């Protein structure tokens, strides 16, 4: 049976430590744009930890919410792309095909989550920092869109491996960089088609809800609400 990759984010476990953000940067060759471009609003974070304040001193509260591409089943970003650079795969991923992208940036406008980022200039690494670049992931050039891929390079590798040694993947073997690094295990990645997988079980939790689910985007990421004692 085909996989259907999804994720569960337990906001009660998430502490906003942002280990996932760095993990993603390291895994996916996301460039640092430098202070000037960052100030100009061109910083790239495939996954970001949104924080929202509520109330005022002394009753101020703050909540964290990691936001990455929700891999929607009815993704608004896909149909608007004139070249199919953004489309849906059999495994339910929102593919972003860099070489097909001509940079209309329409997908980024259509995305309600603003998780798509654009290469305004050719990315640059001061040598020898480029030696760290992950050879399994493309280095995107100027004028193309990019976004969280659910670490498709890991997914593909795992599938090739599985076919090689002819045994199915076990739940938990395959993790995205962010889920792998999360020290509090707030991010859980897995196959939603496997009812026993951790992610499936979490997605069924009564605490679960979907980000902007009422837009009908059918995200594949479930957020488990943060509980509170007081």
């Amino acid at each position, binding site marked *: 049976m085909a996989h259907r990759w999804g994720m569960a984010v337990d906001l009660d476990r998430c502490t906003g430590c942002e280990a996932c953000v760095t993990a993603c940067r390291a895994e996916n060759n996301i460039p640092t744009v430098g202070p000037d471009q960052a100030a100009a609003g061109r910083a790239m974070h495939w996954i970001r930890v949104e924080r929202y304040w509520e109330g005022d001193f002394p009753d101020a509260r703050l909540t964290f919410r990691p936001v990455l591409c929700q891999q929607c089943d009815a993704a608004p970003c896909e149909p608007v792309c004139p070249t199919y650079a953004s489309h849906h795969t059999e495994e339910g991923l929102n593919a972003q095909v860099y070489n097909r992208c001509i*940079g209309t940036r329409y997908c980024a406008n259509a995305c309600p989550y603003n998780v798509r980022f654009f290469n305004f200039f050719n990315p640059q690494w001061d040598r020898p920092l480029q030696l760290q670049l992950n050879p399994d992931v493309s280095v995107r050039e100027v004028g193309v869109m990019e976004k969280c891929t659910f670490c498709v390079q890991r997914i593909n590798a795992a599938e090739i491996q599985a076919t090689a040694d002819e045994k199915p993947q076990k739940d938990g073997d395959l993790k995205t960089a962010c889920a792998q690094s999360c020290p509090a295990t707030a991010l859980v990645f897995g196959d939603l088609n496997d009812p026993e997988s951790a992610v499936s079980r979490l997605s069924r939790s009564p605490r679960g809800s979907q980000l902007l689910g009422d837009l009908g985007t059918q995200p594949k990421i479930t957020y488990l609400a943060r509980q509170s004692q007081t």
Partner: protein
Amino acid sequence: MSDADRRLTDDLLRPLLTTSARFWVLVAFLGAIVATGLGTWVYQMYWGFGLTGVRWPIFWAFYVTNFVFWIGISHAGTLISAILRLVNARWRRPVTRCAEAITVFALMIGAMFPIIHLGRPWLFFWLIPYPNQRGIWPNFRSPLVWDFFAITAYLTGSVLFLFLPMIPDLALVRDRTTGWRHRCYGVVSLGWRGTTKQWNRLETAMEIMAIAILPVAVSVHTIVSFDFSMAPVPGWHSTIFGPYFVAGAIFSGIAALIIAMALLRTFLHLEEYLHPVHFQNLGKLLLMMSLLWAYFVFAERLTVWYGNETAEMAVFRATQSGAFAPLYWTMVVCNFVIPFPILALKKTRTIAGCVVASSCVLVGMWLERFLIIVPSLGHKYLPYSWGTYRPRPVEIIITISTFAAMSLLYVLFAKLVPIISVWELKVGAHPAHAAESVEARDDEQALFVARTEP
């Protein structure tokens, strides 16, 4: 032939046959600006799109504003002249060609912007469905591909619509010139002779074109509006956008036409052919569109405010009272507050008055497009990702240069082709020759004619 006819012919052909230094100065000046614009674009492509002020999450801004604006302007000609042709309003005769010219040029410029605003413009042709070894085609679900088809159809249609009635006049110029000009006009006039058969076929063809071009014109701007309304972006995702944009387009189109006519009138001394009554009538049209525009804006705003949906309200506030409020209210003033009284009062609906009103409208409509695009993108659902936008030099330069490009093309056109249709004017000059049936349909326009002949 009557002296009237001869004088008419001479007047209208004079711009073609004599060239003043002033013309060269003008062309060089406009050319300079256009060149700067092109240079800037090349520069932008060389370094990357980052030279613009576009940023996360506002990925469309000036260029798309210009795109919508110019496509809007393009609704001046073809649409108007087609309508007037169909109802055979006789006062249309001096107006149609300069109107249609606006359409064609505005459309050419507008169509440039989707390419200018691409991250990788050199791959724009992937929008065209052409067979390739990859075996992959454009995505027909994308409004941008709809744009491509719509604009292609509209541009082709408009060019032909402009060209066909030009043929007899080109033939006329052919007969009035000698040497290389004679040869050139000979080629473009396709060997027109003016046999009765040609005249009849031409008239029929124009009628069919007029019928065909109308729905296309409407569809074009509807589809442009779809670029926005198809995306689930607060402030974009609205069913009113189709008619709203079409109305806006005609609105700005007429404004552009009025200004163009006024300029032609003064610079080419066409006072005798472009009468105040023409401005009067166009002014009335503009007034109507201004009201229609106001109605649409009110309807759209009211619905948002009443619905009070969180995300939509964020955009609403940003425009009504927030950072974009100054621009917003400028738009309202330019599109309604100023033009309405000017055009409503017969006393002020003079040529000057119309020009003032039209200039305001152009500014206002440009702002309207900007205010539809930027505030919405800057205030999507997750406030964490809100942002604001400020244009950078490249965008401003390119924007300015497109206005120059428009003027340049227009000036050259007026130089090469009689900007007012000579033969149609002749027909208009002695209505006795026109068919009775036409006469019957024409009485209310006849009033204007009467009023124009002092």
